[in-house]
């Protein structure tokens, strides 16, 4: 594989699965701030 394709693969896997993991790890905030709209 060309280095360009390898970089693209790492980048895309990072963006798709990194985003998935980041949002999966969000927890319910203990105290909701109702003014944050």
């Amino acid at each position: 594989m060309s280095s360009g394709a390898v970089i693209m693969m790492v980048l895309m896997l990072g963006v798709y699965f990194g985003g998935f993991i980041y949002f999966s790890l969000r927890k319910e905030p203990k105290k909701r701030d109702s003014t944050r709209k």
Partner: protein
Amino acid sequence: MAGQNDNWSSRVGFILASMGMAFGAGNIWRFPRVVAANDGGPFLIAFFVATVVWAVPMLMIEMIMGKTTRQGTIGAFKKFVGPRSTWMGAWIGFCCIFIMFYYSVVTGWAIRYLTYGVTGVIRKGIDSEALWKHFTGSPEQTIFFHFIAIGIAAFIIIGGVQKGLERANKIIVPSIIVLLAILMVWVLTKPHAVEGLEYLFRPNLAGLLKAKVWLNAFTQAAWSVGAGWGLMLTYAVYMSEHDDIGANSFVIALADAGSSLLAAMGILPLVFAVSPSREVALQALQSGDTGLTFIYLAKFFPNLPAGSLLAGLFFLALAISALASLLSMVELAVLNLGDFGINRRKAALITAAGAFILGIPSAWSISFQDNQDMVWGVGLLISGIFFAYAVYKNGIDNVRGMINDSSWIHVGKWFNWCVIAIPVIFIIIFGWWVFQAVTWYPDSWWNPWKKLSPGTMVLQWSLLIMAVILLNKWFSKKISLTDTDLVDEIKEKM
């Protein structure tokens, strides 16, 4: 109407069920083909943008409507938008139900090919084109497997939300991921497979300047994630009070996009590994969804060591992913019927019987199935517009406030811009599809009896629109209201 005991047991259960809803046959047989035809790397970037701009806000809108109204598409529009807009929910529901009729047939095809793989019919030297034509030309077979597909779906749905839907998806979704991962790792050990990866991730960034790449990316995002179908609204009805909307919308959309990427990382190397030459591989990728899956891959799977086993695993992944999406469509119909006072078991049986009978024309004729796929597939974009209208009617900032009150992340002003962009995106994608259809049939695009003409789309949509508008009062009168008037409570707090 959802009962109090019909909630998801956990966040994981809800996310897995939603992933099952979103990840269907299209992710396996369409995504790899579309990404290959649209410059690879640039398409993946455009698809990510489309997922965030179109799919994520649409999932949020559906979730807030389902979670606050606790009713199916028809009741949700009556309650969230107003009795005069009940017909919009009916359009969304029927559009999805019409898709269910032929989607059950497609699930049946995948189950049939799973049996071909397991029983060794897919072997070296097989005339896969003749096998496909023989199967699709034998209505007794296509109808039988359509019956099996809708029967399994109804059986699971009768089990209820936790014991049926959630339990099934807890098995199905991890199985799909594991099967795709096995397929990918296995294939990548074969000669020429890496060429497929190179083709998938080719970094031709000039492709980002092509309109075709962006149009295909937004179309794929609109269909793939299942946003705007009413399915997420249906599943959101079973969320518990404290469940999150913001983060879960991102999780579901990115899980669907990531699984599509995983599928492409298995399928494209597979096509290159099993093809006698690069030219044949590229030709296969242009042979359409069913052509690639049921003719091309079935023909060349046996060229690989243990190819029959590999074929079995591939068609198992295809069959269960199609089944998981079919489950969500059946659930949408069952929930709507429940809102009219029909109990779950009876509603599931009515849905299964109706889907079986009305799916027979698609099982009988592949041309009819193609027609329905085009008409109601593009019709989903209209459903998306109705969801956007629901937000405009309540005020974009108000709805964003409602979403934030139910979210573990802060949804910022970007949401407003995405919702404002929905009609613009709709007009561009819809116009592009109509333009394409006109170029396919320059002399007869207006003819409603042509299989893929804009004329047939307009005729069938008009009939449905007229029917649901005429029945608006009846829908509005017959629908049962939920006990808790959550929408009003939340709106009062605004």
